């Protein structure tokens, strides 16, 4: 389809509203945040307008580098685990009768309606020693004694994957439904077992979608700050937790803003790199 270039200023009218929204709700707050990140903290009050690099300088320490590294590692792990679970699940879901698909999708959407707080407390109960699933294992005779599975890295990962899973399925679903089912059948007639057909045809044919989904879940997981606190130990806290801590409890807006700006820059860099690698593979 060929698009005609806009000839009249009025032709731009349809994008005026989204443009305005983007300016009011993204450009202005983000600009404010960048400005604040260069302000000077006023311990007596809040902050005073200035242009100093102190906030960024403070950030350049081993401690914050570790937290940043852990945040990126956690978000990437959540993204990869979610996609690895959601891909076979969605592939099977797309093959179910229409009615069963609707039931599953509604169930997944209802998980989205749960707040992060509820998910966090639900999992911390479920993984606790006194009321958790280990009691069930003891009752079944699989385990000797009930254990606390939280706080731990596994608990943080479980909670975050649980939260990200419905998003992952909903993003993958349209692409998988559109995938020609005869591709798998063709692979089978050509000698591939169903499992081999899945890995040699379905996964490579969905490559770009999978990369895009990993990026989306990665960014989604990077912003999580409640679950690491509810289900993890302090060493499992992400940069988002520290930003919240600085902004709300320490009242250090300029430093929180500086960390947030830095996180955004690192994220953008990683996404750009992923897209570039994806392009290279395509050519």
């Amino acid at each position, binding site marked *: 389809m060929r698009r005609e270039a806009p000839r009249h200023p009025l032709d731009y009218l349809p994008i005026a509203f989204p443009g305005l929204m983007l300016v009011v709700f993204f450009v202005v707050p983000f600009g404010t945040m960048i400005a604040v990140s260069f302000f000077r903290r006023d311990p007596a009050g809040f902050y005073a307008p200035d242009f100093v690099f102190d906030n960024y300088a403070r950030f350049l320490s081993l401690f914050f580098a570790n937290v940043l590294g852990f945040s990126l590692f956690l978000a990437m792990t959540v993204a990869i685990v979610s996609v690895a679970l959601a891909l076979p699940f969605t592939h099977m879901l797309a093959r179910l009768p229409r009615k069963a698909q609707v039931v599953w999708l509604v169930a997944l959407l209802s998980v989205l309606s749960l707040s992060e707080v509820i998910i966090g407390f639900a999992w911390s109960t479920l993984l606790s020693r006194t009321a958790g699933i280990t009691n069930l294992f003891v009752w079944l005779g699989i385990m000797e004694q009930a254990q606390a599975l939280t706080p731990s890295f596994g608990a943080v990962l479980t909670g975050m994957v649980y939260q990200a899973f419905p998003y992952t399925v909903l993003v993958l679903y349209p692409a998988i439904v559109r995938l020609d089912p005869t*591709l798998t*059948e063709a692979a089978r*007639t050509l*000698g591939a077992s169903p499992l081999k057909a899945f890995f040699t045809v379905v996964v490579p044919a969905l490559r770009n979608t999978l990369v895009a989904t990993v990026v989306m879940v990665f960014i989604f997981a990077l912003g999580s700050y409640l679950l690491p606190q509810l289900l993890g130990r302090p060493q499992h806290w992400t940069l988002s937790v520290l930003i919240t801590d600085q902004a709300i409890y320490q009242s250090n807006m300029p430093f929180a803003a500086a960390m947030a700006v830095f996180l955004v820059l690192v994220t953008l860099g990683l996404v750009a790199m992923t897209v570039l690698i994806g392009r290279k593979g395509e050519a």
Partner: protein
Amino acid sequence: MSGLALQNVVKEFGSFTAVKGVDLEVPNGTFVCLLGPSGCGKTTLLRMIAGLDLPTRGAIRLGGEDITAVPTHKRNLGMVFQSLALFPHLTVGENIAYPLRIRGIDKAAQARRVEELLAMIHLKGYADRPVSKLSGGQRQRVAIARALAISPKLFLLDEPLSALDAKLREAMQVELRQLQQSLGITTIVVTHDQREAMTMADTVVVMQAGEIRQAASPIEIYRRPADSFVADFIGQTNLIEAEATGGVASVLGVAVPGLTLPAGGKALLSVRPEDVHLTAPGGSAVPATVTFVRDLGGTIETFLDAGGRQVVAVSTPRERPEVSVGQAVGIQLTAEDCVVLKS
């Protein structure tokens, strides 16, 4: 060695029976077309032969061996899908090499075989192109080459040419038939196009509502249709009612010379338009009136009204009937022009 044999194959989807007890023998090296209107069960039958659907009852044998329960990927067959199902993430060469790669054949042998197949389908030098950059006919050829890469015993095609335009389709029909004859491979094609079936097949299997109506050579199907469905589905025909008077068939009270019918019986005759000969009215000719003449240049179709029933006669320009609309004429029927259909 025996080829493919279907024994009382039944396929039910819930309460709907798609294939109702099909028996079919396909000797090695023959080209069979499954022909029928959409929904007649021909694709379901092919999918069962491929192992993509399991028969509800019945057995499928290949080379004397029961393969009914053998999974698709162990049947070592080649199949071309209606959508072609070329893998979009692979190049032409990688698509053709896919069945070889899956079987763990070494890279050098794969490359040699791909070159051979590309030469066979006249696409030399296309190995590194993405499949999205090919034309419809080229994609068609790549799908065929991919299916034939392992030199399968059985070659299955599901409406393989339906996506091509008319001219290309006719050319591909001839090419496919020549390819099959040079390889001597047992081939089964599903189609709803009777011209396609007539062009390619050794045996045409006409199906309707999940049953085989007739399985015979194209010319026999055309000259000796088993029933009115086959007669009507294959080419054009005139269906004319006849009754027996004194052991001889008569149409509208005029006896057809040499055509016998059991006494007192009624029958339906199939007369091909090119077998309808026009003469002067009277005598042993069935009376009719000309209602319309369509002169197509290559052929002339004369529409007639015989006792309220429409009859079409087709003639070549050389034997152009000198008739005009409204003229009374006679239709001269002979025994060899009429096929008595099972009622």
